[in-house]
């Protein structure tokens, strides 16, 4: 079922697999506004794929298509070798797609632990009765899920805030908790919407390290949108550049950096 293409080897020696998800000629319209125009690119197994572009380029819309929140007006998303039908977001989540949000969407009144636990929702299927009585399947499930959640808490080094309500945490930590929740779903593809936005240098360094560690340790495929060029160029294996809803570049960070269209889009060009 996987693409026959065997993938490639990155500069630092990681083996990247076949195509996991492919956007085929995606167009997205809101009434008369064309947000995305005929874009195609692929995301391969095990790679860190960045989508960049100036404000309003359509990056977030693209991410929303990948996550199943928007259905493309034209074109199709191929996932694991087959076209993905129009789905509700939770169905997409069950297929192994998890995401974080640009402006943190956590439950502020709940503890970090409970928030991360909600990420396990797709892995719970005990019935109401069992849940209410806290007996049998519900209990076994909770123990198994808690174990997984604790592994992630350990991995992201947030043990000290395990029982702290999220509302009391600083911004940088909230971002990390959101990453933890997304990881809790054990996704095969992780979407990060501006994971570094609003962070200071130290927080960015931490976050970058965690993103690399997640990719390295769990082999999770990561697609991210980010404004900080330094971060994007350091982290990602391949970069898609968008401008005004169109794809203007695609390739390794070096290729993209030297692409004239990309330079024009970022620095402006005289008409």
């Amino acid at each position, binding site marked *: 079922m996987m693409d026959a293409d065997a993938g490639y080897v990155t500069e630092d020696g990681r083996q990247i697999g076949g195509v996991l998800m492919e956007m085929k000629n995606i167009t997205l319209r809101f009434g008369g506004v064309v947000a995305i125009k005929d874009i195609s690119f692929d995301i391969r197994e095990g790679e860190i794929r960045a989508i960049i572009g100036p404000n309003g380029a359509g990056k977030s819309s693209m991410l929303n298509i990948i996550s199943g929140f928007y259905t493309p007006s034209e074109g199709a998303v191929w996932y694991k070798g087959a076209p993905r039908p129009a789905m509700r977001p939770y169905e997409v989540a069950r297929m192994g797609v998890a995401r974080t949000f640009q402006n943190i969407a956590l439950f502020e009144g709940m503890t970090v632990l409970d928030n991360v636990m909600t990420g396990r929702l797709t892995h719970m299927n005990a019935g109401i009765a069992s849940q209410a009585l806290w007996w049998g399947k519900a209990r076994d499930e909770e123990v198994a899920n808690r174990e997984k959640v604790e592994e992630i808490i350990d991995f992201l080094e947030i043990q*000290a805030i395990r029982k702290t309500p999220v509302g009391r945490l600083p911004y940088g930590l909230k971002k990390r908790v959101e990453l933890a929740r997304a990881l809790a779903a054990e996704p095969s593809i992780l979407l990060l919407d501006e994971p570094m936005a609003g962070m200071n240098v130290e927080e960015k360094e931490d976050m970058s390290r965690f993103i690399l*560690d997640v990719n390295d340790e769990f082999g999770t495929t990561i697609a991210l949108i980010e404004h900080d060029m330094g971060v994007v160029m350091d982290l990602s294996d391949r970069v898609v550049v968008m401008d005004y809803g169109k794809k203007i570049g695609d390739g390794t960070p070096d290729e993209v950096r030297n692409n004239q269209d990309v330079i024009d889009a970022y620095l402006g060009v005289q008409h």
Partner: protein
Amino acid sequence: MVNTQASAGALESFPALLARNAQLYSGKPANREKEFGIWQTWSWAEAAVEIEKLALGLINLGIQPGDHIAIIGRNRPYLYWSMVAAQAAGAVPVPLYQDANAEEMAYVLDHCGARFVIAGDQEQVDKVIEVQETLHQFEHMIYLDPRGMRKYDHTRLHEYSHVQEQGYAARDELTPELNRRRDALNYDSTCVMLYTSGTTGKPKGVVLSNRNMIETAKNSSEFDHLRAGDEVLAYLPMAWVGDFIFSIGQAYWTGFCVNCPESPETMMADLREIGPSYYFAPPRIFETQLTQTMIRMEDAGKTKKWLFDHFMAHARKVGPAILDGKSVGMMDRLKYAMGEFLVYGPLKNMLGFGQVRVGYTAGEAIGPEIFDFYRALGINLKQLYGQTEASVFITQQPDGEVRSDTVGVPSPGVEVRIADSGEVFYRSPGTFVEYYKNPESTRDTKDAEGWVATGDAGFFEPSTGHLRIIDRAKDVGQMADGSLFAPKYVENKLKFFPNILEAVVFGAGKDRCTAFINIDLTAVGNWAERNNIAYASYQELAGHPQVLETIQKHVEEVNRSVAQDEMLSGCQIHRFLVLHKELDADDGELTRTRKVRRKIIAEKFDDLVGALYDGSPTIYTETEVTYEDGRKGKIRATLELRDAAVAPVAHQRVAAE
């Protein structure tokens, strides 16, 4: 598979004590560590198995008797086992400070010639890799936490659990060799080598024998009636002699349980969950906890605040007396019992001291207010005086004879004498063997009869027989007019104010004393918040006029107190400044155990010292700082120098003559 040849008569090494404990306390907990949110427990029998496997693994990797194994990482059961496994394999464990930078680490690794390193995680592995080119003897590194390590070249790098598995797989071939090495251990074998932080010069490797450690552990355990069933929290650096004595020495001797926190950040929460019955902390930790308690009480409701203030006043009045077993009136006792129910009990629980039977503090002087606060709550907090060369214990306070300004009576088996110069000397079964590869220093410190110079000046109080330490002997000097100069005495008085974190007093050979002050960012920051004073950085807060005003008041209060002391009244502070940066071990200004490096500070800030004596009102300065990742930067500041009022001396020298 556990070594079964433990004969009760020959408990002359830690592997032998382990074998005894594995039989005697087989099912009782030996180690706990919080991981994945749950306390994981290993019984003595299980710990023995883990250690046996690792020892076999080390032999399998080719470790030889007498080799040094450096151990670097935070407190974890696995690393404590590494020490005993190293001993069982005939090697000498050398625990290192985990916050040491690569350069410091290189010096120690090279000096001890470690062929093996056991590192806690990727951070420590990276540091060793950074310096391994310069180490000719270094061969293998074993790491504990595999996270992030997958892509490393594993030709000389091994995962802890794999070393254990491979050792276990080869047990049939290797066990006879392990038994042979283990049986060869006796009281004279080296137990551990610890590097002293060294307030001056390069660190020295202190060689301690099994006799030193086991005798000391035995004596000190009996002194405080420690027993199997006690609980301790191991959170102080593993490279520090105290941690070795508590977490291995006394633990193996008495069979109590050593608990390791989940991470350094969760230490306080873990402390509360464990509720240790035997606890050690440097004064700094008690100070921080008290500051935090007070800050939180400020935010409490009126009723709670009133209750707290009311009962704390009563506790201060009768608490220490009740703890010392002195006679206290019936009504006072009743009120204290009520306070225990309403305030002290819950507070102790909050602080994690609910179960403490014996608590110790040492390393620095503790403020009398801080000390009395904890004693008033009914926590049996005591002081001890010791050093690495003595396997910790020189003097300690017996139950019921506890005061904040003495360090107690000589520990069991320890002889203490005061030289004519005022320097304290001791001789004990814990006295170290030698400084590694440094016979010269060994001779300077330890004489032929085994007396060791502590480098501290002190005296025995005639009335109680308790030892009082004044200062480092070499820091005690004379001022220009010949009067006694003891900087630490004054610094400690300054540091007892919560607003002052660190102080350095100058004045040897001068006509008057001056001081550098470091403010405490927690306390002063909290004050600033309450008074709507905005600040962007430590530097800005440290230079705030109102902060300077407060510090000046503190300095003047200290002057009044110093003036009371006949011998040291010349040490009043005439001028001071508040430093623009926190003194930091990374910049070499403090030792890793956070002691002030006087000489280095005086050299580094010589412009500031000069300004303190030439009368200029302000001074512009630039200082190089080292960031945590090793990069260097500069901070610039213009500092204000202030004069402090000096109190008249109580008894004029002239009048006494």
